[in-house]
């Protein structure tokens, strides 16, 4: 079996590429990797190409005429986070009270709301943003996923940093990863915006 390109680098590039050039670019880099012998040196070259291509490929679909759609998708993502997130938080707090009882610790309730409200909301917001944003949807979703982590990052500056560092890190990384994962989901139906990029 011939060696395969570095999987993480390949996934990152695949995520950043618009649909219409994804196969071609991945194929080109795979060809260069194979012709380079497929060893550690070829893998290093592959990673360098990916690192240098991330920004250009993310912004490939960002033509002036498409900027409005990307901004609209970003707004949709924010609204989803806000409205759906609030409703989900209220629901999951109620669920936590039912499951754990009134005497449940704040930490336990916090983890239940994280798992049952925050993560699904991030996945949904990422998905909607990526597919409503057309060619630049992934870029909009990436911006959204970075913004998701900002409140957790700056909370200590405003005296809300009571959670231990490890717990805050899980919230930050979890929110970021869930939003990115949501935006990487393929369209669930052909009729959805962005189903044919």
């Amino acid at each position, binding site marked *: 079996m011939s060696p395969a390109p570095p999987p993480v680098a390949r996934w990152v*590039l695949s995520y*950043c590429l618009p649909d219409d*050039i994804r*196969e*071609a*670019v*991945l*194929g*080109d*880099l*795979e*060809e*260069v990797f*194979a*012709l380079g012998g497929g060893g550690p040196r070829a893998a290093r070259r592959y990673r360098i*190409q990916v690192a*240098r*291509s*991330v*920004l*250009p*490929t993310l*912004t*490939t*679909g960002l*033509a002036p005429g498409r900027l409005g759609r990307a901004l609209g998708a970003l707004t949709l993502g924010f609204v989803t986070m806000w409205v759906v997130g609030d409703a989900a938080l209220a629901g999951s707090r109620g669920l936590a009270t039912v499951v754990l009882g009134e005497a449940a610790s704040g930490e336990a309730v916090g983890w239940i709301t994280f798992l049952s409200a925050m993560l699904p909301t991030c996945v949904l917001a990422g998905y909607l943003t990526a597919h409503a944003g057309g060619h630049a949807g992934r870029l909009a979703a990436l911006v959204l996923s970075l913004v998701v982590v900002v409140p957790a990052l700056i909370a200590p500056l405003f005296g809300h940093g009571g959670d231990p560092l490890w717990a805050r890190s899980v919230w930050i990384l979890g929110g970021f990863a869930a939003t990115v994962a949501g935006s990487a989901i393929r369209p669930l139906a052909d009729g959805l915006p962005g189903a044919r990029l």
Partner: protein
Amino acid sequence: MARGEHLGEFELIVLAAVLRAGSDAYGVVIHREIEERTRRRVAIGSVYKALERLRRKGLVERRLGDPTPVRGGRAKQLFEVTRAGRRAMRRTVETFDRMFEGLELGLDSA
């Protein structure tokens, strides 16, 4: 000159690389042509970004080639410079020529 026929330096380089690659102008070949002739490192993503911009301006056309095993079964995207693309190249080069006509850069002995 109509809007869309103004070429940046990198766009001109990419168009020239597509022309040089002839009937086999796909990402790997175009990228290699650019790196070898300009002697600078270029990200393949930047090449595709420029090609996409040129395609939207109608200066290149693309079509799908056959998938090959060495590419993991993925098809090539083959590019061709359109007539409008050749015209834009000629105008840009003529503009450069006019700008540099009679200009002494003073670097001959360097």
